[in-house]
């Protein structure tokens, strides 16, 4: 929310948030504006994402329920709409149990630091044309630096609980972070390479406009961008500990992993952090690959930019939930193997692919078709080869019947 001048040429919906902010700031003396504006940005972010967290839990339970032939929560309020608040009351009123032998400081610190760390990444996401909390030159770098310590909090939780399941979960969390931080960052590099900047607003701006009037310049709609988007989302699933990479809290193996010894509101904080982290990574994916707040078609720009951002974000989050309802969990060695033998090589090849794309930006006419063909081949061929090697020795089997 750094833009102070309100452009006059845009629809009132587009600038409504800015006008509301200016109106609020007008109530305060001039000398307090700089801090009030920051506090306001933080309050809006925490409020909006807090509410989104509440309803995301409901949406997850509803969607999972529908996918699994059951209605999901539908008793609290109309169609279960008050369920998140009932859950919050329950979490707040439950007894907070700390194991006697636990490392009490770390045990209490872990959920708090986790929530804080998963939230601060949101500061650099451009939620709309004029809606970004901090404009940074190295915003992408800031985002991943902010997220780097989240798994450290999970480790703290697991280690401090003094529980063997938690300890195993802590080890798994470490292994998972080391493995998936690499493809996550590597899948972002092509975007930075092609856009030539680390600033999120500039990356979104670079994805504006349409080729041939209908094909948006979103990165996901290029071969290398699609590949990078898929790699990013897989790594994001692992980074946010979501199924099928929910190994640290593997319910059927480790009870609840690092959450085993948590109860009451601390437990709720972990959930909050999981959803914040998921939302932050999805928001980053929208920014980097899905054109940020850009509308998919020109005439659709009648809707304000932040609506488009929210729509894309919610679609990705629904994808997270869908994946959770569908896939079984990987084993820890398969998890690391997937990262190092598939995601990392794919991401590195994709980097070369993006470099090729960037160098051939001037090609046109039939050369454009060659450019697309080469880039597509550079995605599809390694994908086929690597995935075949990943699943070598596995496959459907033919069964015989005992002679009678």
């Amino acid at each position, binding site marked *: 929310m750094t833009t102070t001048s309100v452009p006059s040429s845009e629809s009132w919906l587009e600038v409504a948030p800015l006008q509301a902010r200016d109106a609020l700031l007008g109530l305060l003396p001039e000398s307090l504006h700089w801090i009030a504006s920051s506090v306001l940005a933080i309050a809006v972010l925490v409020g909006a994402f807090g509410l989104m967290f509440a309803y995301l839990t409901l949406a997850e339970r509803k969607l*999972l329920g529908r*996918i*699994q*032939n*059951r209605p999901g929560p539908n008793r609290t309020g109309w169609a279960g709409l008050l369920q998140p608040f009932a859950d919050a009351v329950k979490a707040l009123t439950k007894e907070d149990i700390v194991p006697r032998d636990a490392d009490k400081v770390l045990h209490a610190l872990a959920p708090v630091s986790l929530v804080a760390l998963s939230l601060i990444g949101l500061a650099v996401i451009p939620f709309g044309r004029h809606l970004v909390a901090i404009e940074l030159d190295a915003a992408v770098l800031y985002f991943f630096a902010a997220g780097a310590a989240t798994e450290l909090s999970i480790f703290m939780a697991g280690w401090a609980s003094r529980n*063997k*399941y938690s*300890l*195993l979960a802590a*080890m798994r969390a470490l292994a998972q972070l080391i493995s998936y931080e690499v493809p996550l960052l590597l899948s972002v590099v092509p975007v930075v390479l092609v856009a030539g900047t680390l600033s999120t607003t500039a990356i979104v701006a670079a994805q504006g406009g349409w080729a041939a009037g209908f094909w948006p310049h979103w990165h996901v709609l290029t071969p290398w961008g699609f590949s990078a988007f898929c790699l990013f989302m897989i790594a994001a699933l692992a980074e946010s500990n979501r*199924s*099928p990479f*929910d190994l640290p809290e*593997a*319910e*059927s*193996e*480790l*009870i609840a992993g690092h959450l085993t010894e948590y109860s009451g509101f601390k437990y709720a904080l972990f959930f909050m952090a999981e959803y914040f982290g998921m939302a932050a990574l999805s928001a980053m994916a929208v920014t980097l690959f899905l054109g940020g707040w850009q509308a998919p078609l020109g005439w659709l720009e009648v809707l304000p930019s932040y609506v488009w951002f929210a729509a894309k974000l919610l679609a990705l989050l629904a994808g997270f939930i869908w994946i*959770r*309802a*569908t*896939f*079984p*969990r*990987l*084993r*820890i*060695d*398969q998890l690391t193997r997937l990262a190092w033998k598939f995601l990392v090589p794919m991401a590195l090849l994709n980097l070369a692919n993006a470099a090729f794309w960037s160098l051939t930006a001037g090609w046109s006419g039939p050369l454009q078709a060659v450019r697309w063909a080469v880039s597509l081949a550079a995605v599809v061929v390694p994908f086929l080869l690597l995935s075949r090697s990943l*699943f070598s*020795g*596995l*496959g*459907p*089997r033919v*069964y*015989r*019947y*005992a*002679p*009678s």
Partner: protein
Amino acid sequence: MFDANPAASPSARVRKVEPSSFGFQPSSVPPPAGGGGDLLEISLGPHHPSTHGVFRMNVVLDGETVVRLKPVFGYLHRNHEKLGEGTSYLGSMPYTDRLDYLNSMTNNWAYAIAVEKLAGLTVPERAEYVRVILAELTRLLNHTCLAGFLMQDCGCSGTPLMYAFRERERILDLFESLSGSRMMCNYQRFGGCRVDPTPAWLAAVAQLVDRYGPFLDEFEELLTGNEIIMARTQGVGRLPAALAVNAGVTGPMLRASGVGHDLRKVDGYGVYPRLNFRVPVGDHGDVYDRYMVRVLEMRESISLLRQALAALPGGPVLDPKAKQRGLRPKAGEAYGRIEGPKGEIGFYLVSDGTANPYRYRVRPPSFVNLTVLEDLCLGHTVADAVIILGSIDIVLGEVDR
């Protein structure tokens, strides 16, 4: 499994030794592969999401690899066999429901066969067919549940389980309308069945059979070809055929290891010899084979149900001369066994001519199949141990009795 040598000195690598009252001596723990790290001893259960009841596995881990595993059970022990000696023959029938509470119909049947052998009773033709119908419905129910639970253990967030339970409810509805109870059916009697199924009930069974094939197709489409499922289950928990035979493993678990032993073929009890079905056999004996053999068995069960429904003759379902209450078989012994969904479920009875059996003994398939657990799990990770346990298909009501 039950011969932990107390004389062997506990390895110095294991710091904490479980209370010896649980019979767990982590003796002869082999040094961990790779040399490094110390061992971690974890008690999985008795309250654990995926030990299928109050079962406990004491595992010694090197990193995440299982180097020693000790099953601990008895938390659900309720003196089943001794109770049988103090109860009349008919009085034990509802108790058999509680053994493997998913499959009360087959438990009833095996017990009824044992008593019928002991007392020399005959079973009317119609009752034999009804028993086959109920046994195959039970097999469908059990295998469907198992597939759902196994996928749950693999980490699916409930979706396959819910699909499986949807079908299970339909079968339980049929059981309820026939016997009055969903799970504790208490339906078989000595010399036949308790009530005659109505034509409406038989039509409902036919309807269910017709929609079961498409359900299996849907289920398999969702899971069987899934790469993660294959990666998680193929090559995991291999049970060699020789070990399976030596350990007395029966049922789908034995057949997944490549031994085509099915009591329906071997004993040819009931009217099974008149029906046409095949016995699927696996070649690898791993978790995937155990899952697939059960799926294929379900398909055979559907065909069996169709044949039995078509061939169902009229007549009584209960031999009117057979005495139920106050049955006093003459002194002797008998062992009745059938191919239950989990394996050979058998009842051994000794009569001394009184109204109560002198000796009442159950041969539970889950319990015997469970004895190979450690051999299957060694060298695999904790996550694998959980799905291996899931693929063995245990019900604690039967293991602990």
